[in-house]
């Protein structure tokens, strides 16, 4: 979804990083929320893609105001409520999203690809700033559960993932700093030959 979480390249979201918050947990409730969310995922109450998408679905003001573990808290509340207040640890909790794929990777390092202009209403891991952009396959990363389906109970549908490198100018035009690039890990279905 084109939500508030999709922050790459957005402006106005923060000033200088010269003074920055080095803390991990600021309060005890944050520690407990971290542990609770981890436990629930470990039990298979929800998977990590559902969890990330629940965070994405928080209202934008809460997303920005509640802080990092405030987002985790909001996501847990949303998921617990959605399971009719009874998350069921009936599902198998997979420790890893890595999957063996029968089909070989479609792309190889050095291939030129274009990202599709996807605007999926649900969960996806194609950042908005990298949509409809030309890049080069840098790494072939193995087969992985597809978040776009796994977050919505539509199955794992694993695909090959690629680190795709985009030149700074390709992403930001004249605003790009010279000599910069961004590599993004993208699922095969996000890509087309350039």
């Amino acid at each position, binding site marked *: 979804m084109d939500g508030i979480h999709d922050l790459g390249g957005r402006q106005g979201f923060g000033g200088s990083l010269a003074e920055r918050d080095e803390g991990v947990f600021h309060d005890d409730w944050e520690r407990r929320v971290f542990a609770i969310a*981890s436990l*629930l995922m470990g039990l298979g109450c929800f998977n990590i893609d559902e969890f990330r998408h629940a*965070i994405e679905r928080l209202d934008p003001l809460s997303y920005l105001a509640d802080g990092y573990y405030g987002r985790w808290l909001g996501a847990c509340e949303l998921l617990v409520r959605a399971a009719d207040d009874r998350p069921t640890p009936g599902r198998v909790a997979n420790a890893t999203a*890595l999957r063996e794929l029968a089909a070989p990777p479609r792309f190889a390092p050095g291939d030129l690809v274009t990202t599709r202009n996807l605007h999926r209403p649900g969960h996806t891991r194609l*950042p908005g700033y990298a949509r409809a952009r030309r890049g080069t396959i840098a790494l072939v990363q193995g087969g992985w559960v597809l978040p776009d389906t796994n977050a919505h109970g539509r199955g794992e549908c694993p695909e090959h993932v690629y680190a795709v490198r985009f030149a700074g100018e390709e992403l930001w035009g004249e605003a790009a*700093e010279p000599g*910069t690039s*961004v*590599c993004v890990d993208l699922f095969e279905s996000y890509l087309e030959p350039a």
Partner: protein
Amino acid sequence: MSDGHEHEQADPRALRAEALERLLTERGLVSTEAIDVILRRYEEDVGPMNGARAVARAWLDPAYRERLLADGTAAITELGFGGPQGERLVVVENTPKVHNVVVCTLCSCYPWPVLGLPPAWYKDPAYRSRVVREPRAVLAEFGLELPSDVEVRVWDSSAEIRYMVLPERPASSAGEDDEQLRARVSRDAMIGVARVEE
């Protein structure tokens, strides 16, 4: 309040967290013991000292460096690290001409097995929004000014692959042993917002 305690306005999030924990405990899904086990792991056992061990070993042992760059997960398994968020660890090497920096623009993905849990700045909008767009400016705010002939590569951890930077070894560290080298390697250098100083 008549109980004599100092009362600030209670943080609503703290109250919500308590309510959530109570509900889930009643349902038998979480317990204080289970919570403590997780917290102990991530507050004590896992942290940047792990990554520093891998870096120091790579600096001292060229064969280990090759293995670390070829398959980060296998290489850190040799040192006894691994676990969640480490199924595929890719280690990217800084050179005199290439500087790498890691981010997760969409949330906060971070190489837990080698660096522990991320600091707040890594997970907050300012870093996530800016480092893909203006990495040189961001690095300068961290105190790292890179010459224009050094290429900057930003790695956006948008899938389950996790990245760690193998910083350049400073010349002044020649002759130092494993323990001395480890002490030099900061978390920030392994995320790519710093170099290891001379």
